[in-house]
């Protein structure tokens, strides 16, 4: 029998552990995981990957039915490219303000983080207002949801995207409120980054929709 004493294995404290999360140096209470990367971030990227499939299906359906309007009003008579370009620009700039919010959160500048998050939500609201206005104009011109296969697929695709923007705005405003009240006890920068990933995803989906739906001629 050996008299060598075996040191008990070092245990890792779940919350006070250092930043080993692969979440890039902004951890206040790093998330330990067997992979060494943030589980939250991994889950968000997998969720966004699955969202690609959702929008892939909706975009495919639209592309199939874009010329199936029969005698009803079609895309060429409806699109107002300058207006949609302006709303697209607004959404693109909201991605900039979102990334500035993430950047401020990493520097632990909470006031600037809340400011940029609020600006992002306002820009998102402006985009959504533009979409509601556009839908109202189309409806008045005779394009109802069940008018044609084109109209159904168009409203479903852009409507789903609009719902995603609305959910993003709710997430942004909730985050601003929670930051103001100090309700976020875990890694604040990572929380802002997660909302940011969702918001940027909404933007990249619009980049695809804008080109395929509005710019490429039917």
């Amino acid at each position, binding site marked *: 029998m050996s008299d060598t004493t075996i040191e008990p294995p070092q245990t890792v404290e779940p919350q006070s552990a250092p930043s080993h999360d692969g979440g890039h140096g902004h951890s206040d209470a790093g998330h330990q995981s067997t992979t060494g990367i943030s589980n939250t971030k991994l889950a968000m990227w997998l969720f966004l*990957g699955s969202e690609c499939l959702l929008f892939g299906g909706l975009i495919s359906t639209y592309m199939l039915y874009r010329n199936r309007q029969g005698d009803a009003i079609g895309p060429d008579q409806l699109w107002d490219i300058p207006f949609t370009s302006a709303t697209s620009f607004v959404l693109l700039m909201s991605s900039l303000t979102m990334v500035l919010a993430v950047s401020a959160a990493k520097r632990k500048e909470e006031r600037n983080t809340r400011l940029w998050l609020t600006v992002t939500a306002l820009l998102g609201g402006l985009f959504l207002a533009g979409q509601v206005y556009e839908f109202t104009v189309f409806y008045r011109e005779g394009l109802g949801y069940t008018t044609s296969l084109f109209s159904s697929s168009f409203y479903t695709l852009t409507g789903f995207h609009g719902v995603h923007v609305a959910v993003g705005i709710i997430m942004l405003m909730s985050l601003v409120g929670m930051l103001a009240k100090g309700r976020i006890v875990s890694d604040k920068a990572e929380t802002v980054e997660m909302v940011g990933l969702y918001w940027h995803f909404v933007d990249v989906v619009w980049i695809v929709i804008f*080109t395929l739906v509005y710019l490429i*001629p039917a």
Partner: protein
Amino acid sequence: MSTDIHPTDTHPTDTVTHDEHETHAAHEVSDKQYILIALFLAVLTAMEVAVTEISGVPEALLIPSLLIMMAIKFFVVVSYFMHLKHDAAIFKFGFYIGLGGAVVLYAAMLATFHFFIG
């Protein structure tokens, strides 16, 4: 970077994650660079609209140019604003599997309907 290392808390993944931290720190994008990237995206959007509005551009040229500009915008946002370019490979895998699946789904649907309709 090394201040948060606990010498006794050795874990197989620790070295990897600290490397990732250092890699990310080396690729940290400043606010000014983010603004420049946004300007580049705005210019690309303006170019997309301009190409569409110019009359007489043949469709064989118009559609590929629009698709290329769309793809550039897409990957710039994903790579820089979403930080996927310098992030862990597993995140890229998770996202691009979904994206690849969406493209395959799109191609399969279009092909299927093309064969059925003729």
